[in-house]
């Protein structure tokens, strides 16, 4: 279970204005497209996150209302799944595989190397806001372990030196 609270403690009952503003029009357009489809909550959350980089806590009410679910239910779904985040990530997201096949090929060392280089732990963003590193459990690239996913691009047989090159590239991005 993901241990991730969307709402600050004790603020569960507050309404929109307490949350930072977000792009309600983009969310409304996504909701319009999915409104009448069965089982639409995951696709909606994916699209919101794709468009805005994360699911703004303020959007929970807007989503819940549009699909006739309670805010608690929507919050419950967001907090259940590892993919959904409720605050903006770094400019690049690096997912480092932590699962067994990659472990057998040096992923523990690779993860430690990434943490040292970026100066932050798994689940955190480097101080300069350039890169968020996250754990991922198997990328289906176990025949080319260790594997990482950098902004959706898959890389295999990743050595610490290769990771340095990828990170340097990512950090140069505006």
């Amino acid at each position: 279970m993901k241990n991730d609270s969307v709402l600050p403690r004790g603020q569960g009952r507050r309404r929109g204005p307490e949350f930072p503003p977000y792009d309600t029009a983009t969310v409304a357009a996504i909701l319009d497209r999915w409104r009448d489809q069965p089982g639409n909550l995951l696709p909606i959350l994916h699209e919101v996150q794709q468009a805005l980089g994360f699911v703004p806590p303020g959007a929970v009410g807007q989503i819940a209302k549009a699909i006739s679910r309670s805010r608690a239910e929507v919050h419950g779904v967001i907090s259940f799944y590892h993919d959904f985040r409720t605050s903006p990530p770094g400019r690049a997201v690096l997912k480092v595989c932590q699962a067994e096949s990659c472990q057998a090929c040096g992923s523990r060392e690779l993860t430690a190397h990434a943490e040292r280089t970026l100066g932050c732990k798994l689940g955190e963003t480097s101080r300069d806001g350039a890169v968020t590193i996250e754990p991922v459990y198997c990328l289906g690239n176990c025949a080319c372990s260790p594997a990482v996913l950098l902004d959706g691009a898959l890389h295999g047989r990743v050595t610490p030196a290769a990771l340095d090159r990828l990170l340097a590239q990512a950090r140069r991005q505006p």
Partner: protein
Amino acid sequence: MTIKVCVPRDAAALSVGADATAAAIATAAQLAGQTIQLVRTSSRGMFWLEPFVEVETASGRVGYGPVTAEDVPGLFAAGFLQGGAHPLAHGKVEAMPFLARQERLTFARAGLTDPLSLADYEAHGGLRGLRRALGMAPTAVVEEVVASGLRGRGGAGFPTGIKWRTVAGAPAQPKYVVVNADEGDSGTYSDRMVMEGDPYVLLEGMAIAGYATGASFGYIYLRSEYPHALAVLNEALATLRARGVYGRSVLGSDFAFDAEVRVGAGAYICGEETALLESLEGKRGMVRFKPPLPAIKGLFGQPTVVNNVVSLASVPIILDRGGAHYADFGMGRSRGTLPIQLAGNVKRAGLVEKAFGVTLRQLIEDYGGGTRSGRPVRAVQVGGPLGAYFDQRLLDLPLDYEALAQHKGMVGHGGIVVFDDTVDMAEQARYAMEFCAVESCGKCTPCRIGSTRGRELIEKIVRGEDVARNHRQLLALCDVMENASLCALGGMAPWPVLSALQYFPGDFGLPEKEPAHVV
């Protein structure tokens, strides 16, 4: 004459530079004034050789690999378009020992075709199974699958035909076909290869399942870690609709079928079929109590066939060649072939489709060539993160559902992860508990709380704290998890832990002993 050159577009090949290799080949051909037809195919599944380039010559396809972009000028200089000799050359691809000793049924087209070309698919036997099925009574289609002996390749090994029979017999409408494309087990990638490399075989299998059971809509629940598969499947679906294979009238018959891909959100437990259904309904992926079986009350409360990607991808050839042909492969109650995936620290990592009965040692040594690091094999995990760790003494076990189960191992989804002698098995055991804690759906206490307690106990044992007592507690905890968890995540997470304790006690600082039950 235009020469055909094939470079895979499989995600694993791309992850080691296949796009750059393909671009370099196109440029070099242009420079040489040579017109080539560059085709982006699926992968053969020989991943240690990726990017693996094949050139079609008069005497068949010859292979080169691993070919980086920098290798390309040298290959042209060596005349590789004519199959010229080069240190990266492997000769005729079909004759390469890794491939020649396989029995590829489900993966018959791997590496041969352009995944999205329907013409290629049909030229290589595609749609024959669906055509034959549409000419039969639905119940006869179900019985053909029963006769094949096909068992679910997702992990539980339940006979596919029997499941279909239940759904076919359920009176409620509508019914659904749901594809489990969550492929969460470490060491597995055969579902990914099917979806990226041969999407039509999965979609054909789905339509056959729909026809046999009376369902006319399907969902593919795809893990979010597979963006390439998502793109390929959506394009393949659009093509099938445009060509009248999917839609109101499947291949001109009265049968209507369509499907949609839905993307998961990074939760291992959503591979468990009832959690998957909850997730498809837009809820938290919490495991349901059974009964009712999904076959009776599944998605949105309707009768639902839930099958793994490889299970459904095995159906078209069963309908095409007949159940008996498929059942001729295999041993005992494990019929047909299994796509085995070699992973971890293994020299030749890749896909081996073989009839059941091949031993772990044959797979790791003959096919895999031992470890990639060149050090001795110390431990092998079979069947994903919930499978037992085996040591050397168990490698002569045949890959067979029943044989492995005797040792708390499992075929699972067919993944084999190899570790060399630098592995710390206490750390692997600790990870097994940690993974269970991270991925637990939280419905039952033994799994939700027990996994965290288990991790703590292992840490204490390793630190040498009150070892005898904590060891006893760990065994008791594993017993509770095994017997009182609702699903196999909590119920089997103890297996890797107990096997590590049994075969590698020294890694925990416990006295070494001869394990009691070794073959």
